[in-house]
């Protein structure tokens, strides 16, 4: 029977006869004297403590140990943890987008097919203007027709153009 528990202040109120019994019990307890503690007890307790805790390997102490923190510090640590977690999550998200160039490279390869088709269309245009063998000629579309100096004649009127700092005047 635990007397301390039974007499704790936060228990429910008791009837009057029970209060009388407690008072008697208290008197008895007041008269009780604990036995003397032998000097070896301290030694045994200390040895036992050291064996149980201090002599644990460091990794076990880290695993099983606990640290008490003030509530504001714990809250700040929790907030910091949330923030860093969010940032880490964002970074992780951007990494997931990095494969995008690889996807676009694949698209480039696919686009090359329309380019070839575009060349074919260009040649068809030449075909329409009276070049039936345009397909066989080596890329005439990219070269302008040759300028023949034979088409040039002396001018009929000389008009001198004067450039003042890049501005032409006649």
């Amino acid at each position: 029977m635990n007397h301390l528990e039974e007499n704790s202040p936060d228990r429910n109120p008791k009837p009057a006869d029970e209060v009388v019994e407690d008072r008697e019990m208290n008197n008895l307890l007041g008269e009780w004297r604990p036995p003397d503690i032998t000097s070896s007890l301290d030694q045994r307790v200390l040895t036992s403590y050291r064996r149980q805790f201090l002599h644990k390997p460091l990794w076990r102490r880290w695993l099983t140990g606990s640290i008490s923190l003030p509530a504001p510090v714990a809250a700040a640590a929790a907030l910091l943890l949330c923030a860093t977690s969010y940032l880490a999550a964002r970074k992780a998200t951007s990494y997931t987008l990095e494969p995008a160039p690889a996807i676009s490279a694949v698209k480039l390869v696919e686009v090359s097919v329309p380019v070839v088709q575009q060349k074919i269309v260009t040649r068809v245009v030449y075909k329409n203007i009276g070049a039936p063998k345009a397909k066989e000629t080596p890329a005439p579309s990219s070269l302008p027709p040759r300028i023949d100096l034979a088409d040039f004649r002396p001018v009929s009127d000389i008009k001198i153009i004067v450039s003042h700092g890049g501005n032409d005047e006649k």
Partner: protein
Amino acid sequence: MRNRIYLLLAALLLCSIRLQAQTAGDQAKDYLAKLNKRQVNGIEVTFSSFTQGRATAEGIVRMPIPDPDEKNTITCALINPSTGKIIAYELAIERLPEPTKLKITIKPADYGSIEEINAVKEKELKLLEVLWPTKRGYALTSLPSPPEPIVINITDVIKIPLWVNAGTEWGVIGDQLRFAIAKEPPPEPAKDFTLDDVKFKLAGFRLIINGEVRSGESKDLDLDGGPLPSFFLPGKGFFLLSLRPREGLNFQKIGVAEGNKISFSYDGDKYEWVSREPIISQDGRWHIWVFFDPNAKPLPELVEISKLLSKGNCCVFYEYKLDDLPKPTPSKK
């Protein structure tokens, strides 16, 4: 006023052509391209081409020649080998009291009298055909009435439209001129006088071989200002003359220069090169060293041009430069 465009042109072209593998036409073009900066009246004029519309100046040959009589005038001839048309204009540059201002006058070049034009057709225009063959032959073209003189700043750029394509695709080709105050070239450093500084003057000359005139007299045949006159005789070879022997070449002391004549004998033939003027300015009889190369051959165009420039011309005459000579190789010990 007698126009000297084509006489100058002939002299220019002959100067430009060397005994190289490159065609004579290309050599002449390269040479003329270097003449695009000319100086008159203390002003340096830089000639270049300009185009507008669909046009290219590639192939046009330009010959700007300062007029020896008019100190402020440059005659510029432009040749279109594709059509054989030649345009020439005179550019006169007057300096005004304000140092940054120039008065520019452009007028058609004076081709001379009908007789002179006909003479040009017989000789110089055919010379052009040798250099730059054209199907239609070369012809002189008169420019229209000249524009009014203009006053410009020296920093201004003027463009003179000369050729136009009025067909389906419009285009213009012309000359672009930039001006600058001519800078005096630095004086040449003094040096010791040597025999290489003595100039042979062979003007309006004849070549006589074994008493027979083989090259007729011509005003156009001038070799003036060099230490190494030469001639090539078809069937024989190449003769190079000098006042002294040259290392690396087998010169022989077999000639004499006196007055208007150089004479020497080689391989049983007697050669007399007779000039209109004294060949060496210093009076006296001077030894002439002669180098002969039976294997050297000039460009065929050069042979044709030489024939054009002198009646009954047998030979190609050429004024060698010292740089033309092969460099002597170091002797082995």
